């Protein structure tokens, strides 16, 4: 194309301490195009967006807007340069009414009103407090506010994720027409259907680098998935054989049966069984409802609809303690959520079951001590710095969160991304531990954002997309490409390897 780019970013880098969130990202945005920004979890999409909108500063690279160097220190700066972002979470001030929110951002009211109507919300009262407006409508208002300013570039981050289908259609429609008036849009979405309907080109990020720019055309999904995975496809093909050995594991009785579970706005309709003696993996892109699923199973959120059965009996969890009583333990990804950081290793391990011993009297130290010791040895926790848990390494902290539930003899463990940010050796120990627990007949639900862990640890992979289970893959075919494809809601590869049953989705329901 001969047109000069509207926005050009080259070699953009951002480091958080020793961790590189972005290494070498580039993006060229032409006038009047809708440009998709794609990449797996943690590829650096949101970091790039934050840099472009002035929420954070980049450490390296060059960004120009209309050929002039562009530096945004704050979102207000970015707006003055003609870049407006609609973030994943609503950015209206909850305690101000809509009209005050408009005044705050100096948004002209009449265009805003028109855009709101255009986007399919006819009866908005501008005097309503933002907190009283439903979440989906708030997102629409965010978009209308951006449109009313008439920016040169709009960044839409997962704009349609929280919207019901009819509103999402209107949004796509409006955005499409925007591009015809010469405005450019950077569009982030996990939904290939929308990208195909809306976008002209896509930039694909992997591990903080731009790995390709493709024109959107029919069948481009496969190419994009390939780019997102890169060399991992080859590696995965090689390990596929080894995984086959684990196929013949005995299936235990159903421990937890989830039926048509709906939680909050994100988890729509999820059904699956978790059996004794298995590690079931959960795979989902960020924000597909997995947090809500785990919260509901752990008893910290009440589901809006659907049932959870434990050992064949319907269970209602009003409080996490109800789940713990049923032997269901939750290990959160954020360790600081689970641990009393200033207490000792022993106290932390003893905490859940000391509460269970609760016969109001003093804690039975000897009984406690023996159980704690057994758990520490079992997990090989480094106890040199045991006086304060916060002085342990991340890996050892994670072990403590698991050890407490082994000491408390939980029968089901819900692990939410337990290996995030810990070293490889400890990761292996945790994999081994989870397998051992499963072999002892315990059941484990294991959400991970690192897809290669599925074949290392799990027996099956439950894939959630858009709040629904889209596929349940047996471990033999659950390699990274297959999981990625499924996680983006694409159907299984047509040329699946012979001899492997494709009816994995039924397997989950097979238990009587």
């Amino acid at each position: 194309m001969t047109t000069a780019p509207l926005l050009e970013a080259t070699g953009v880098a951002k480091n958080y301490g020793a961790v590189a969130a972005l290494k070498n990202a580039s993006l060229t945005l032409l006038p009047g195009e809708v440009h998709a920004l794609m990449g797996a979890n943690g590829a650096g999409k949101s970091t790039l967006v934050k840099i472009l909108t002035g929420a954070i500063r980049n450490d390296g690279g060059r960004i120009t807007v209309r050929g002039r160097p562009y530096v945004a220190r704050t979102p207000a700066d970015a707006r003055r340069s003609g870049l407006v972002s609609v973030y994943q979470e609503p950015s209206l001030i909850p305690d101000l009414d809509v009209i005050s929110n408009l005044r705050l951002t100096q948004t002209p009211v009449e265009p805003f009103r028109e855009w709101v109507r255009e986007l399919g919300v006819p009866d908005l009262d501008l005097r309503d407090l933002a907190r009283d407006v439903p979440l989906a409508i708030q997102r629409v208002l965010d978009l209308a506010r951006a449109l009313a300013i008439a920016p040169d570039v709009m960044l839409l981050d997962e704009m349609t994720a929280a919207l019901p289908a009819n509103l999402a259609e209107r949004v796509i429609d409006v955005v499409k027409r925007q591009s015809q008036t010469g405005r450019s849009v950077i569009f982030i979405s996990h939904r290939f259907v929308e990208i195909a309907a809306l976008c002209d080109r896509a930039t694909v990020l992997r591990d903080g680098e731009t790995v390709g720019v493709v024109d959107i055309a029919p069948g481009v999904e496969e190419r994009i998935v390939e780019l997102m995975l890169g060399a991992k496809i080859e590696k995965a093909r090689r390990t596929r054989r080894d995984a086959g050995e684990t196929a013949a594991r005995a299936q235990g009785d159903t421990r937890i049966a989830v039926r048509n579970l709906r939680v909050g706005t994100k988890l729509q309709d999820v059904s699956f069984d978790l059996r004794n003696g298995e590690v079931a993996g959960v795979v989902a892109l960020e924000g597909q409802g997995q947090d809500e699923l785990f919260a509901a199973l752990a008893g910290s959120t009440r589901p809006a609809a659907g049932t959870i059965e434990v050992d064949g009996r319907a269970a209602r969890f009003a409080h996490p303690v109800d789940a713990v009583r049923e032997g269901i333990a939750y290990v959160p990804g954020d360790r600081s959520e689970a641990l009393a950081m200033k207490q000792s290793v022993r106290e932390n391990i003893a905490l859940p079951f000391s509460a269970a011993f609760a016969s109001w009297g003093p804690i039975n130290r000897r009984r406690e001590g023996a159980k704690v010791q057994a758990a520490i040895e079992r997990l090989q926790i480094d106890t040199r710095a045991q006086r304060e848990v916060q002085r342990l390494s991340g890996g050892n902290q994670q072990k403590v969160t698991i050890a407490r539930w082994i000491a408390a003899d939980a029968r089901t463990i819900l692990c939410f991304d337990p290996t995030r940010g810990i070293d490889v050796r400890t990761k292996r120990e945790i994999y081994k531990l989870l397998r051992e627990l499963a072999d002892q007949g315990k059941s484990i639900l294991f959400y991970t954002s690192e897809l290669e862990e599925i074949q290392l640890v799990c027996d099956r992979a439950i894939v959630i997309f858009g709040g629904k289970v889209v596929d349940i893959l047996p471990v033999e075919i659950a390699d990274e490409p297959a999981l990625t494809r499924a996680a983006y809601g694409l159907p299984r590869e047509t040329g699946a390897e012979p001899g492997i049953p494709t009816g994995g989705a039924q397997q989950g329901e097979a238990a009587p």
Partner: protein
Amino acid sequence: MSRFLRRHGWVVGLSALFVVLFVATRIIQPGYGAGDFGSLVRAVLPYAFAVAAQTVVVIAGGIDLSVAAMMAFTSVTAASMMAGASEEYAIFVVPLVLALGFVLGAVNGILIVVTRVPDIVVTLATLFILQGAALLVLDAPGGGVAEWLKGLIIGTVPIPGLPDAVTAWFPKALLLLVVLLCAVWIPLKRSRLGLSIYAIGSSELAAFRSGVPVARTKILAYAIAGLFAAMGGLSLTMSTGIGAPIPGPYLLASVAAVVLGGVALGGGRGGLLGPIIAVFVLRLVRTDLTLLAIDPNVTAIVEGSIMVAVVMFGAYVTIRSRAS
């Protein structure tokens, strides 16, 4: 109408409570008249400014523990400057002291923003610093005040065409309070700064994304609180004629009135009118209990109980109305 009640229900309820208390006072003490009301307003004056200061900061999502100490410091500064000076000299002292309060408040804000030390720690530190500084200015109650300043809060406002029996219920102190609070609050509430103060208290992240200069807004919120505290300090000097270096009981009273006045301690919600009415309610309760000759220690217990009861009742009504 229903929206008006939903938005302003708290203020309406508090006003009703004040009226009920006032009627109760007349029953307890049939002789309670305009003169007594005047002295109630004069007693409320420093409390009201302390509450105004605290309200602005709490709406911005913070807390200011240095309010009472700042009042003491500005009070002794004004009293020592005016001691033995001419009446005209006070015309320079007043704006100077107000500016002093504004700057001291801004310093609070700057310390919080720059050092990222929690507001409660920073303002606790400035509480001690200002306490010490006040004692350096005057080591014992003393100083003086211009007569015209004193006169501003003594007597009633003559309103032409109204009989004395009516104007007797409009003490000058009330006029001064209303004028000063409105002079700051109304322009603030209508400005982008006012919106920004609500915004950062409501959700700092959303405010940042909406392009609000969060740091600057926070500093200005504390500065305005300092301005109100200086008004409180001046009102102390005006009503007592001297400056006292030991801070009065205004800190806890200000937090109490803010809570009772329907301002969310988390920030972002509430207004100035509620806390001001709340401070009148709290002082009137004290008057009533004194009139009933109840042990002062019991008085404190009753005051605390009223606070808990009112706030719980308010929360209950809010939850009920949300459920329906």
